């Protein structure tokens, strides 16, 4: 575990009566892109704030680069690039000032790279933060997050509310960070097709609990979407071990299931069905099948 970049053990957090994190344990190895997914309020931001030392672990422990981010912020924060959903930047600064200000904070700040990024993002040193569009603001915040070539890049909903061009720049920054000497990225997102595109590993948080943690390839290859047909209509789907969610009616039903494909097919055939279609589900489909049932219990979507 010592060469892990991030180690979270049995982390729990309660805000008033609301459980924000419940016994979350995970480790993030070096050189990986780690995708954190979950609904609003699932605990993603709370988890990221613990890694930054913005919240103290009340129960359980958090280690980043082997250090406690609350007790030893210098050892941790100088090596992290962070981009929040709010993209907090000082409004009164010009971008040139923002770059100088940020350079003073990070010992490994790379001025050449910062100017390269500025150029790539079609920004200029004279622009004031206050006057930036939403996409420009996100790019400026991204520049600050990556121009010191951080060992760990933390992105909290980096793409939310952005146009496709700005989202591409963020994905490109993730790809480049990992391609460069195997640095590590943790990002949370609602855009599951983007997570599916760049993540090595995925963690699904649901109401503060880690309900699934796996390599993305394994997750995708362990889940199957089967459409099956019965000789006659039936009021409900059959009981098949590994079935996570069903849709359909009458004679035709579709099931998202978890397990060995051949076993699942045999179980469907034993139940008297024929398989009419089979494909690999997307991360979004897996996510919904894992979280939807409890969502309907809550009476919301």
């Amino acid at each position, binding site marked *: 575990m010592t060469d892990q970049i991030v180690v979270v053990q049995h982390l729990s957090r309660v805000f008033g009566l609301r459980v924000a994190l419940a016994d979350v344990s995970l480790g993030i190895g070096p*050189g*990986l*892109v780690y995708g954190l997914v979950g609904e609003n309020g699932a605990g993603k931001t709370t988890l990221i704030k613990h890694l930054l030392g913005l919240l103290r672990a009340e129960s359980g422990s958090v280690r980043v680069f082997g250090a406690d981010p609350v007790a030893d912020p210098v050892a941790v924060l100088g090596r992290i690039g962070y981009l929040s959903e709010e993209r907090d930047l000082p409004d009164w600064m010009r971008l040139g000032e923002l770059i100088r200000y940020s350079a003073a904070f990070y010992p490994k700040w790379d001025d050449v790279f910062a100017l390269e990024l500025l150029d790539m993002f079609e920004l200029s040193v004279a622009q004031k933060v206050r006057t930036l569009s939403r996409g420009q603001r996100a790019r400026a915040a991204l520049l600050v997050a990556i121009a010191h070539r951080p060992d760990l890049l933390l992105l909290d909903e980096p793409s939310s509310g952005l146009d496709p061009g700005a989202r*591409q720049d963020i*994905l*490109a920054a993730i*790809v*480049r960070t*990992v*391609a460069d000497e195997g640095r590590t990225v943790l990002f949370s997102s609602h855009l599951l*097709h983007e997570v*599916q*595109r*760049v*993540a*090595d590993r995925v963690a699904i948080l649901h109401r503060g609990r880690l309900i699934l943690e796996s390599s*993305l*390839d394994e997750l*995708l*290859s362990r*889940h199957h979407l089967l459409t099956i047909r019965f000789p006659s209509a039936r009021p409900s789907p059959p009981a098949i071990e590994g079935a996570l969610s069903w849709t359909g009616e009458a004679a035709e039903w579709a099931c998202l299931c978890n397990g060995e494909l051949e076993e699942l097919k045999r179980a469907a055939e034993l139940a008297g069905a*024929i398989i*009419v279609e089979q*494909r*690999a*589900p*997307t*991360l979004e*489909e*897996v996510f919904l099948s894992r979280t939807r049932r409890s969502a309907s219990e809550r009476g919301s979507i």
Partner: protein
Amino acid sequence: MQLRISDRDGIPIYAQLVRQIKLQIASGRLRVGDQLPSVRKLAEQLLVNPNTVARAYRELESEGVVSSRQGAGVFVAEDASPLARREQNRILLDRIDMLLAEARHMKVDVDAVIKLVRQRAETTQESRND
């Protein structure tokens, strides 16, 4: 080398890359000795994880489709074509299996399917010649 990644189904991206590169070799768009882009370049071009591209290249190398020369890069291997053609056949067989299963459900026999395939090939050929 132009590749397309689909996020509309859950086929892992490394598998999509492996398949598309083999198809490009089978169809002659990539030739023996051609150099593939570096891992980093392809990852940045497609906006996918570099580890995924590296895995696709490793897979292709272990199957003998590409060979990597230390420091020089990754190249289409000498005997890549027959391997790639086998892959091409496998993909066609998958599609044929699907077609035959559909036909069975609709109670259309194999001879009728073959006749339809031939008719279809002729009409699409004609419209291409127009």
